Each structure stands twice: as structure tokens, then as C-alpha cells.
């Protein structure tokens, strides 16, 4: 009896921890979207992994320095980033993969105004600084 109780307590704890993790992950995702729109360099530095690889729907891939400098220079800026669906495919103590459908509006040097409907695969790592985006690839829906 005590054994069963211990076991079920253990699993309850696991489930609770996993739920807390997915809440903190969704918070990090929403913080990143806000930071991209607001060109918040401090938040971006924290939320983007140093080795981040950020792939766009035209095949272009940015690294961390480029994401931040391109926001500053106006090479690629966002007016709105909005997830219409979020699926956490997997989450554990070290990393998570997420798939989202996302509407992104903004402008680039070559496109005065874009409105994109995207599907996105994201990989997040849990680090000492909290959740950080390691990789992302979008494609047009």
C-alpha cells in the first residue's frame, strides 16, 4: 500500500514538474515573440541561445548576431507575431520541441510589408539562463 502510494506520488510530482516546465516554456516563447517585435536586445540576448540557428520561410538562416543587428538596421523587423496554434511535441529536463502555426507581419529591405502564414518547428534548450531558442525553421502555409 505504502509502496503504491509512494509510486503514485512520484508520478504526480513528475506530471506537475512537466506542467510547470511547459508553462515556463510557453512564457519564454511569448517573451521571444514580444522581444522580436519590440527589438528588445536585452531580452533577445537572454532568450536566444548563442548558437541559435533561425531559419526563415524563404530559406534564409540567421545567427544570433544577425537577428539582433538586422532588427536594428531594419533589414528584417516585425510588427506582429501571433501564434494561432502551439503544440509542444516533446518536453523534458533538457530540451523541448514545439510546432506552431504563426502569423508574422513586418517588413524587410526588399519587402515593404509582408503578411505571412507560417508553420514553425522550434527547438528550445533549458539552460542556467532559462529556456533558450536553439533552432527554428518556418515554412509558408
Amino acid at each position: 500500500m505504502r509502496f503504491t502510494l509512494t509510486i503514485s506520488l512520484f508520478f504526480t510530482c513528475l506530471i506537475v514538474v512537466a506542467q510547470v516546465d511547459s508553462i515556463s516554456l510557453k512564457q519564454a516563447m511569448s517573451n521571444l515573440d514580444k522581444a522580436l517585435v519590440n527589438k528588445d536586445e536585452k531580452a533577445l540576448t537572454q532568450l536566444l541561445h548563442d548558437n541559435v540557428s533561425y531559419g526563415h520561410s524563404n530559406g534564409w538562416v540567421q545567427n544570433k548576431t544577425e537577428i539582433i543587428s538586422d532588427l536594428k538596421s531594419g533589414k528584417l523587423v516585425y510588427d506582429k507575431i501571433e501564434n494561432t496554434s502551439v503544440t509542444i511535441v516533446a518536453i523534458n529536463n533538457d530540451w523541448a520541441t514545439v510546432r506552431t502555426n504563426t502569423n508574422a507581419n513586418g517588413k524587410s529591405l526588399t519587402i515593404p510589408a509582408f503578411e505571412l502564414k507560417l508553420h514553425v518547428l522550434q527547438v528550445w534548450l533549458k539552460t542556467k539562463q532559462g529556456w533558450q531558442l536553439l533552432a527554428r525553421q518556418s515554412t509558408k502555409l
Partner: protein
Amino acid sequence: MKKILISILLLSVITANAQSKNEKALVERTYLLSRTVFGTKDSLTLEDLFAKPATYGHSHGNIQTREQAINGIYHNQSTYTDTTVSNMSVIFADDDMAIVRHVFKAKETAKDGKVTPLNLGLMLVWVKEKGKWKLFGRQAVPLQ
């Protein structure tokens, strides 16, 4: 002092060697995946390559589960010629998880004989399970 230095050197050589072995295995699995998806379409190899929770994203945004993807590849009646894998890059999250990016180009011949050029960017998420790299996630994007 000398002993410590030699030990450190030896250790870093061992670590670097382990890392490059890990990367070599990962790159081999990536080529095997490409050859299987666009070549042999062998379902047993696909079963071995795909992790149980794998999700497989196509360039037009369609997402498949492991079962759907394997079934789709196995029954794909197109053939691919002039296939090239290029611009490969690897980012390790840790020893057991890594992101691989590469470009895939080919000529696709559909069942009806129609030929279309294929030019894709691929992002692959690999996770090591019991010493073997397994495909955990894949997202394709069309390149211009």
C-alpha cells in the same frame, strides 16, 4: 606539472575524438536518411531512423507523425535523380541531441512522367537513443 599538462592534453584529445566520432555518426545517419527518403524508400531503414515521437514537416506545411511519414515515403511513386546534399551544418545541444541543416536538390519524376526540380532547405532534429541517432523532427522549406 608536466604530468598534469600531458593528462590535460590527453583528455582534450580524447574528448575531441569522441565529439568527432559522434558527429561522424550523425552525418552518416543524415546521409542515410536522405538516401532512404529520396532513393531506396526502404521501410525497415526508415523504422530504424525515426524516433517513436518523430514529427515530419513538409515544405508546404503539412505535418506527419512517424507512421504517416514512413507510410508516405514507402508509397511515394516519384523517383529522384541528380540528387545532391550540400551546405551541411551541425549544432550540438549536448552529446545526445543535435540539429543538422542541409540543402537537398534533385530532379523529381512523378508517376505520370512529369519532371520538376526540387530545391529544399532541411532542418533535422536528432536525438541519441541507446547509442543510435534517431530522427526526432524534420522541417523542410522550399528554396528559391
